[in-house]
């Protein structure tokens, strides 16, 4: 971890990055209906302003010779040996995230102005969006794990609010709750990691932890790494906590874009990249990260092939893409940059894809069933083009962003040149093919073929306030890859964070991989055309399908497993405990009372009312007393 200097100048005010959207949210929430008319504008303005600020800060940062600035704000919690200060760390890593979040965030805000135009609760929506951005910025800008944790859970809250935005739908409410709970599971891991750091190093600030982590025992470091990973899995929807991500589609589409492209799910990757100094010291943890990444990207890709819900497909593609990123950062120094590059590129094209999907739904009366789409390309030209570019970028069409970044990851994986490298690399390549398949399937079902619209649906292109952001993102998804990898290498920019990128000895020539990937991708496209393109798409999903398809449709039974493993037993346990508490614990108390009462009336029988009985009692008593006294005297 490089030396940090107190920030001055504009960087000193970088806390405004968080404050602006937060203020926006506060105004919109507290302002009530008064702000209905201009609320969305304010919300957008704050984020755009934040973006500008982020840009300026980044430029200033680039100017510094020591590219890292520490912004100390105030004492948050200080007692005993614990001293947590609220402060920000503005360095290349947080900079690129800040840019991504605010940049893509602003576009999504703009888009939402149009998308939510007719929703009575638009103001509330923008308030939540602002909150989301603010929380995410705190997450990436905080200078300690505690600050990160605060942002971390803040993001959880914001996602909860947004997924449940249409809370009158039980499905939405449930999905939101599910998202929050699964995130909480991850948060436990993060929290425990923080406790462990404090217990071992007496501090939770990045500087302190990364400074002292070297002195720890290997086991401890691995433990910290794995706990952090658990947290990351929760946020980024990685195995085994991936199940909430597709359900999150219950929220309005811009939310999906925000969650999947700009914020939330990238947090996990950020956490691991940020904790590079820890992971560098623990091979084991890194291996687990890679394994999980590989596993998840496969799961995502497989599930993506089966769904007919356009947003679900995109969701699973996110799961799988994040898997790539995990795989990358799991590689360690070799992969951080590749992973982050893919993250940024993904930010562009996935946002574009979601906004495109939103635009399609907008046109199709909010239907998401691709079997009811088809032939939309001439109805929604802009959407089609932008969406198409995003699609090409995603499947790694040569010289579009996805191509470069994914390629880099797979290269780096093979460069490990060990069983792990080969297996994970192989999986990654395979998944690339699957990606091409399911995305092509999506394209074909949505934009090509015969129109299978329900009657009364009259597709129309979205207003420019929606299309404009899509265009911008499309441009980004086309060029960002080349930009980040070759023209303006991310590796140099991140050098202060991850150190000098060492030139790895390539096991397989990059060219070879490039070509191989392209071939695989084309195969996927071909397969999709064979399955979907050339024959009629039935408007209802076929019921009699192979177990593989069924499994895929059920996302490999993730929910089933969760339910039967945790939910049901939990409910049983709860019911059992309620019984125990009423009958057992409380029963014991009431039982005692009852016993006293019973014995009372039973003893009361002795009070017969007959003088002679009383006299007998007295005589007996007297004898006892005398006997007792004599006994005491004798003994």
């Amino acid at each position, binding site marked *: 971890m490089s030396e940090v200097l107190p920030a001055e100048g504009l960087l000193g005010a970088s806390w405004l990055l968080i404050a602006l959207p937060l203020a926006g949210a506060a105004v919109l929430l507290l302002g009530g209906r008064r702000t209905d008319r201009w609320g969305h504008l304010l919300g957008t303005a704050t984020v755009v302003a934040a973006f500008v600020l982020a840009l300026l800060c980044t430029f200033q940062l680039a100017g510094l010779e020591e590219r890292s600035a520490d912004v100390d704000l105030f004492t948050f919690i200080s007692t005993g040996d614990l001293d947590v200060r609220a402060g920000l760390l503005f360095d290349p890593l947080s900079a690129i995230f800040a840019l991504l979040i605010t940049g893509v965030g602003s576009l999504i805000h703009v888009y939402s102005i149009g998308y939510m135009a007719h929703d009575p609760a638009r103001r509330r929506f923008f308030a939540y969006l602002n909150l989301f951005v603010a929380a995410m910025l705190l997450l990436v800008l905080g200078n300690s794990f505690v600050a990160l944790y605060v942002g971390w859970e803040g993001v959880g809250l914001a996602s909860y609010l947004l997924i449940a935005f249409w809370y009158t739908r039980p499905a939405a409410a449930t999905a939101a709750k599910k998202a929050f709970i699964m995130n909480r599971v991850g948060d436990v891991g993060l929290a425990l990691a923080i406790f462990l750091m404090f217990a071992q190093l007496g501090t939770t600030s990045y500087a302190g932890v990364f400074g002292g982590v070297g002195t720890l025992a290997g086991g401890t470091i691995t433990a910290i790494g794995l706990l952090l990973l658990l947290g990351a899995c929760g946020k980024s929807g990685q195995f085994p906590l991936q199940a909430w991500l597709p359900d999150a589609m219950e929220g309005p589409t811009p939310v999906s874009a925000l969650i999947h492209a700009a914020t939330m799910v990238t947090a996990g990757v950020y956490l691991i990249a940020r904790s590079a100094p820890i992971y560098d010291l623990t091979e084991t943890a890194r291996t687990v990260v890679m394994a999980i990444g590989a596993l998840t990207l496969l799961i995502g890709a497989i599930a993506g092939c089966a769904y007919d819900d356009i947003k679900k497909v995109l969701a699973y593609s996110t799961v799988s893409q994040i898997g790539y990123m995990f795989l990358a950062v799991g590689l360690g120094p070799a992969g951080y940059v590749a992973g982050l590059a893919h993250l940024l590129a993904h930010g562009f094209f996935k946002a574009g894809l979601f906004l495109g999907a939103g635009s399609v739904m907008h046109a199709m009366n909010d239907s998401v069933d691709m079997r009811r789409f088809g032939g939309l390309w001439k109805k929604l030209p802009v959407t089609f083009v932008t969406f198409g570019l995003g699609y090409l970028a995603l499947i790694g069409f040569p010289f579009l962003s996805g191509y470069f970044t994914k390629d880099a990851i797979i290269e780096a994986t093979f460069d490990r040149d060990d069983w792990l490298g080969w297996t994970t690399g192989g999986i990654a390549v395979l998944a690339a093919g699957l990606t091409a398949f399911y995305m092509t399937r999506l394209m074909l079902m949505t934009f090509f073929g015969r129109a299978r619209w329900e009657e009364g649906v009259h597709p129309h292109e979205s207003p420019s306030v929606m299309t404009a952001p899509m265009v911008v993102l499309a441009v980004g998804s086309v060029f960002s890859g080349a930009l980040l990898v070759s023209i303006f290498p991310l590796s140099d920019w991140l050098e202060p964070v991850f150190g000098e990128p060492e030139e790895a000895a390539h096991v397989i020539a990059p060219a070879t991989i490039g070509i191989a990937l392209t071939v695989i991708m084309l195969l996927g496209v071909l397969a999709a055309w064979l399955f979907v393109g050339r024959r009629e798409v039935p408007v209802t999903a076929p019921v009699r399908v192979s177990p593989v398809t069924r499994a895929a449709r059920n996302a490999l039974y993730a929910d089933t497993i969760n339910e039967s493993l945790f939910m049901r037993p939990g409910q049983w346990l709860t019911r059992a405990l309620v019984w125990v508490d009423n009958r057992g614990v409380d029963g014991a108390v009431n039982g005692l009372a009852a016993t006293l009462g019973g014995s*009372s009336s039973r*003893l*009361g029988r002795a*009070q017969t009312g007959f003088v002679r009985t009383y006299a007998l*009692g*007295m005589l007996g008593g*007297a004898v006892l*007393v005398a006997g007792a006294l004599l006994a*005491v*005297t004798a003994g």
Partner: protein
Amino acid sequence: MIEAPDLSLAALAPLLFVFGAACIGVLVEAFWPRESRHPVQVTVALVGTLGALVTTLLLTVDFEREITAAGALAVDGPALFLQATIAGLGALSLLLFAERALDPARSAFVVSAAVPAGSPRDRELLTVQRVQTEVYPLATFAIGGMMLFVAANDLLIMFVALEVLSLPLYLISGLARRRRLLSQEAAVKYFLLGAFASAFFLYGLALVYGATGSVRLGDIRSASLAGGTDVLLVLGLALLVVGLLFKASVAPFHTWTPDVYQGAPTPVTAFMAACTKVAAFGAILRLLYVAFGTAEWTWRPLVYAVAIVSMVVGAVLGLTQTDLKRMLAYSSIAHAGFLLTGVIGLGAAGDGSGLAATMFYLLTYGLTTLGAFAVLTLVRDGDGEATHLSQWAGLASRSPLVAAVMTLFLLALAGIPLTAGFTGKFAVFRAAIEEGAWPLALVALLASAVAAFFYLRVIVLMYFSPPAGAERGQGPTVGVPGMPTTIVLAITATATLALGIVPGSVLDLAERAAIFVG
């Protein structure tokens, strides 16, 4: 040639006052015209008891302990403290006797006890305004007996005092104006069992006399010191204790208590609950500390045991009572147990705070229970007091003040802080724990928790339940007390609060008084 025994009249003044008043009362009964007899009797009785109270208090200023009347009487701190307590409580009880406003027939006592209950004559007498006044001299005699009882330094005097206090009680507990059958039954039971018990006491006396050749407490002490303890002495002690425990209504000699408390006229019950308890424990303390103080290792385990039995029996049996008087009877049994906890607190060397604690507890308990019974006399229905629990439901909404006062007394009996009951309990438990008897104290505390339940139940009924018989528009009425009862309630309630909040001075008094002579 017998020389006259030395008599210190000063020391005897209180007793002379009371017995004097009693005798005058008898004469008044004989010669004063019936019409105006009642006020006179009341005055005489009150003058006697209050006079006794005053004189005892006078004696306490710069008094030196002494044994007088040829060693028959001990005039020492405990004697005076307890005599004052008895005189005071006695006076209050007499005020309850004298209450004429509550009962439509102007008195709680039957006009002529000789008339068979339920006979036509009895029914017509039920409503006449005539009141009978023998109860006052009788009660006065009882009070005198009690005061003698706690001062007796000689088993024989103790026995005589026991009878002097018991016989009038037997009688007046049979004199209820209403529910005469119950009252008479109570009298018979009390009498037969009382006589039975005093026979035990007497036999014990005889055995002790045989063992030590004397019935003076002092001599017994020295004898037991010298000769150790032979079987006769121990047996004697046992039988004496039985006689006394009976009067103190300690389990297993408590069986008469609920029946008599319930059957006797409520003022008499109050009188018994307050004064008899004091007297009996006064005697127990004197007997155990003075005569057998050196042989405590013999009786301590016994007291320990009966204390526990008494507390448990009282607390547990009280739980299911539905009659308030009977419930208070069981509570008095439980309290006897708590008092014995204090008796345990006698230090090995006769020091220790047990004595003072017990005396203080007696005072607080007497006041509280007297007050509680006084409240009982207020709540009435067609035939006399409404003592069934169900009739007290929703009393608070009907007359908040009475409910509040009753609540105060109940909380005091339960031993809730800021009431006299708590101070008393604290004192006796402290004494016990100081002597290392913390298990006993613990049992006592748990017992009082159990007992608290039935006190609470009354509060619950009064405050949280819908009024009884409200729907039928009937149900008990709360009588407006006349001057006497009002005074009693005022004094007892004030004292209960005062002894809870600022008990300091009275505690001092007990502390300084707590040394026996002889």
